[in-house]
Every structure is written in structure tokens, then in C-alpha cells.
């Protein structure tokens, strides 16, 4: 697949102090390093090894990722929002690439 593309889903609005559900998905093969090619050579590992979510710079949720996470990694978690602001999401690839996304939420 082409460059990994993140998708994120956060409610557009919430009331202050509400706990909302955050869903994230990114296209990535998550090559585990356990597989062999047709000639019997090990296919090198290439996975997303770290995912983080912050809200206005404050850490909300993060995850250290091993090759046992399935292709096209999906993470769903909760966030408590007190004020309007922006969630920032970051996925770090074994090759050093960083994929990012963000989502605004209005709190009233």
C-alpha cells in the first residue's frame, strides 16, 4: 500500500468533564520479522512501534507496539475533556517515519 494513512474519529462536541471514545486506524502491513520470502530468507521487521495521543500538548494515551499487533493497527481508548482543543496523534515507524493526524473537539 502507498504511504500509511491514518484515520481518527473523535466526537465533534462534548460537555466539560465528559469521557469520550477515541478511535484510530492506520494502514500499515506490520511486517513482523517472523515471515520468510519465497527463497526462505527472513523478511525484515517493519512495524509501527509507538503510538501517542496528546490533547493540547498533554499526554492522554500512548502505546508501545510489538510485532504481534495486527496489520492496519487499530487503537480505541478514552479521553476526558475539560475544554475545547485539539487532539494530536502520532505513529512512529521502525524506519523512523512519523505519521500524524489531529482532531478538534468543542467542549461546552
Amino acid at each position, binding site marked *: *500500500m*502507498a504511504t500509511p*494513512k491514518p484515520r481518527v474519529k473523535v466526537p465533534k462536541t462534548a460537555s466539560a468533564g465528559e469521557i469520550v471514545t477515541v*478511535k484510530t486506524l492506520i*494502514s500499515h502491513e506490520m511486517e513482523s520479522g517472523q515471515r520468510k520470502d519465497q527463497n526462505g530468507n527472513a523478511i525484515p521487521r517493519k512495524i509501527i512501534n509507538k503510538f501517542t495521543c496528546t490533547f493540547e500538548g498533554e499526554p492522554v494515551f500512548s502505546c508501545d507496539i510489538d510485532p504481534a499487533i*495486527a*496489520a*492496519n493497527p*487499530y487503537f480505541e481508548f478514552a479521553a476526558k475533556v475539560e475544554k475545547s482543543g485539539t487532539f494530536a496523534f502520532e505513529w512512529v515507524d521502525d524506519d523512523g517515519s512519523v505519521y500524524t493526524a489531529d482532531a478538534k473537539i468543542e467542549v461546552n
Partner: protein
Amino acid sequence: MNKKKPVLAAAIGLMAAMAIGPAQSDPVDDKLVIDGELEMVTRTKAPEGSPFEEVLSGWLYRTEETRALEADSFQNPGMLYVERGEEIWNEVDGAAGKSCASCHGEAASSMKGVGAHYPKWNAAAGKPYNLELKINDCRTANMEAEPYKFDAADQKALVTYIKHQSIGMPMEIDLSAGDMQSWWERGKERYYLRMGQLNLACATCHENYNGHYIRADHLSQGNVNGFPTYRLKQANMVSLHNRFRGCIRDTRATPPKAFSDDLMALEVYVTWRGGGLSIETPAVRQ
């Protein structure tokens, strides 16, 4: 580990599943509603001449977790390929400097319903065309681009995107056009043809034994309304002709080539068998 164990287990499993006492497990009684909004037809009256009274979507044969994946368009990993397909739709490719969008505009309107009526009679070619063949035709004739190789990542994504524009619409093909009827008949013959070292026809599993387990697999009617489909096994989109070939390979037969007359006829026939089911692309299967 004892190497003999899986052999015995497999042999006993299959005997138990298929010969001694077939484990019957009915498809679930559940409704597929995508995102709580779009209600899908997963059960409908079979077309006249069908061996079934009711045709059932493969979704009804899957576990609760797999069904839930398809019901949430955000969680459904197939939607990543729909998004990639949208990019391709708008990408200029080939000597004519055109994208799909150059001629067809917004796919949401121009392609709505299109995928639900394929395969379709193509008079110029004198045979039925599926979306893959139609796209390649368009690429060479109008875009002056290279045709996609079978199962190229972009081919799967673009077909998924175009088919997805018909999500929720009934799958329905026109057998009165051109020579479609004779292709239907050829496909029917192929469906009941026993093949391979295991001597299985499509019908053995999907007509006679649907609802039973073959080892751990819950056999469905083999309907095609969800293709290209996201398969958990491959963690990727799987095209219909890839699945045809995989199934035939598993009977220990040499599979016909993708888009060969044999498989095009089979596509016509099995599409007819599932007529009336909603297009689910991208469906999620095991």
C-alpha cells in the same frame, strides 16, 4: 511437539465434520446495519431457479466479533482501501493526462449503482465484463495508461472504491443482454463440476454443506456481494477472482487464470445466485 498430532486431528476433524456427523450450525439471526444507519439486506428470497429458498450473506456465518467489524465503517479496515481508491480515482495517469474523475466526475454520483450491476455484457468484447476488465479497458482506451495487472494493489483499491459507491443497493445483473444467458449456463456447469484431488465442486461445500463446519470453518452459501472483501487471514483486500482461485486451489486442482472465460462465467453465475443481497463492499470475512 508431536508431529503426528495435527495429522490425526485434521483427519478426525474432517471425518467428524463431513462424513460421520456433520456439525450443523445455522447462520445467525442478526441484522447488519452499518453505523446504526444503513440497513443491509443479508437475507432475501432466492431468484427463481435457485436451489435455495433464501439467499444469505456470508456475514451471517461469521462470529460476533467479525460481524461487528463490518458494522462499524470506522473500524472496518476495508475502508482504508476505499480511501486509497478515492485517491486513485482523482490521480492523473497515462499519456492522455486524465484521471477517472476527468470523465466521470464525482464517483459518489456517477458510480452509484454501477458496481451492483456487474458483470455486464460487453458487446465489443463479446463477453461479460467485470469491474476490473472495464477499468482496464478505460485505462488503455481513454487514459492511454497501462492496464492493471491482476490483483495489483491499485486495482483492488479502485474496484473496492467503485463497488463501495453501491453499498446497500441490491446486487442484480442483467442476463437478457447479449449472450449472458449462455455464459450463465457455462458458469452453472462450472459450479457443479467436481475438480481436483479432493473431487469437490463449488456446490459440494456452498450448496450441500453450507451451514456446516469444514474443520473450523463455517461454510457459507458463497455469495459474492461483499467483494472485494477484507479478509482477516490476509489482513488485506481479496478480489473475487483471487478467492475463486484460492478455493479451486484448495480442491487440489489447477485454478483457471483470473478473468479467464471459465472464471468470468462462474462470476456471472454466482452473482446471479446471490441476486437481491445488498452490496457490502468492503465486507469483512474470516
